[in-house]
């Protein structure tokens, strides 16, 4: 004797079952028991206790939010600002070639890359529009990750070693490049 599959039972539960399944369930005790089991499992899932976050994440959200606000405030002048920064860095490197560690020099370089990418993004991001829901989700995801990283950088900038900061800044540059690619793709489509 043919019985209901789990898909049939799911359809019965949703009121979308085939004529055959609706007829069969009225006469088959085994399938009635399976359907009852399905109802019970769903009821038990709904009754599971709420899982609570093990740590307070608000401080991290707040830091990221503040870093993001600060980033937005300063981006209006980022292009000219980063040119000045690049010139200053170059001058310092030329004047004091032996005084900086490799990690520190790399850190300075990566920060400069980050600033340059920030400037380039500003030129693509003139209207904030995106092509599709998927593109919007990708961009939002990248921006979130950058903001979270910025929050971490704000917290760690004063206390962390250059090597750790370098890793964080390199990660930021990687995310900025991904964001740049996402924005640049959109810009090509809409002709910006």
């Amino acid at each position, binding site marked *: 004797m043919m019985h209901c599959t789990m*898909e049939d039972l*799911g359809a019965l539960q949703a009121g979308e079952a085939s004529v055959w399944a609706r007829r069969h369930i009225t006469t088959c005790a085994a399938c009635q028991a399976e359907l009852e089991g399905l109802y019970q499992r*769903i009821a038990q899932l709904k009754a*599971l*206790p709420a*899982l609570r976050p093990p740590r307070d994440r608000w401080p991290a959200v707040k830091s990221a*939010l503040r870093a993001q606000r600060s980033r937005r405030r300063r981006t209006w002048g980022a292009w000219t600002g980063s040119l000045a920064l690049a010139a200053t860095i170059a001058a310092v490197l030329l004047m004091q070639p032996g005084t900086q560690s490799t990690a520190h020099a790399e850190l300075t370089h990566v920060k400069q890359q980050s600033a340059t990418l920030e400037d380039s993004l500003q030129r693509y991001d003139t209207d904030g529009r995106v092509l599709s829901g998927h593109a919007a989700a990708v961009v939002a995801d990248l921006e979130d990750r950058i903001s979270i990283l910025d929050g971490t950088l704000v917290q760690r900038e004063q206390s962390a070693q250059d090597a750790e900061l370098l890793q964080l800044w390199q990660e930021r540059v990687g995310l900025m490049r991904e964001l740049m690619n996402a924005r640049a793709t959109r810009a090509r489509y809409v002709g910006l």
Partner: protein
Amino acid sequence: MTVSLAVPDVLVARAQAGDEAALEALFRAFETPVYNLVRRMLRRPEDAEDVLQETFLEVVRNIKQYRGEGHLWGWIRRIASTKALMRIRRDQVRQTESLDEEPGKPGMHIGANLDLERAFERLSETSRAVVWLHDVEGYTHEEIAEQMGKSVSFSKSQLARAHARLRRMLDEGAHA
């Protein structure tokens, strides 16, 4: 878990004006439902914590766009589930359909609910997401398919396979 969270309109308005205390109050009101939702969908607790953080970052950034149409929880839940699904897609390479026994945890064998919870935890992340969104959160297959970027039949077959596995695991547990 049933959530019926009413948030005063004035609190939402203050949050939309950028009031940090109001934003924190929203975070406190929704942190557990959001964490519970994404933790049920994701296998690793640290991933769920990250998604909780990403969700609220997006909430505080976009709260001005919330027009009061529908429950605020519905709006936040949509952001959270989308982010959890994005993480599942991003990490698909490490995801496996293997249902290997995970190391036992103290107290996990007491009571029917915990048995079901343990069996549920052994499903793949995709299956967990579909089961939780459909059976507990009440999403339709059409909504799940849209959020996952898959077809409606994919969502339906994932749900059926997941329930078949749950049933099998619970049967094996009962006869062990």
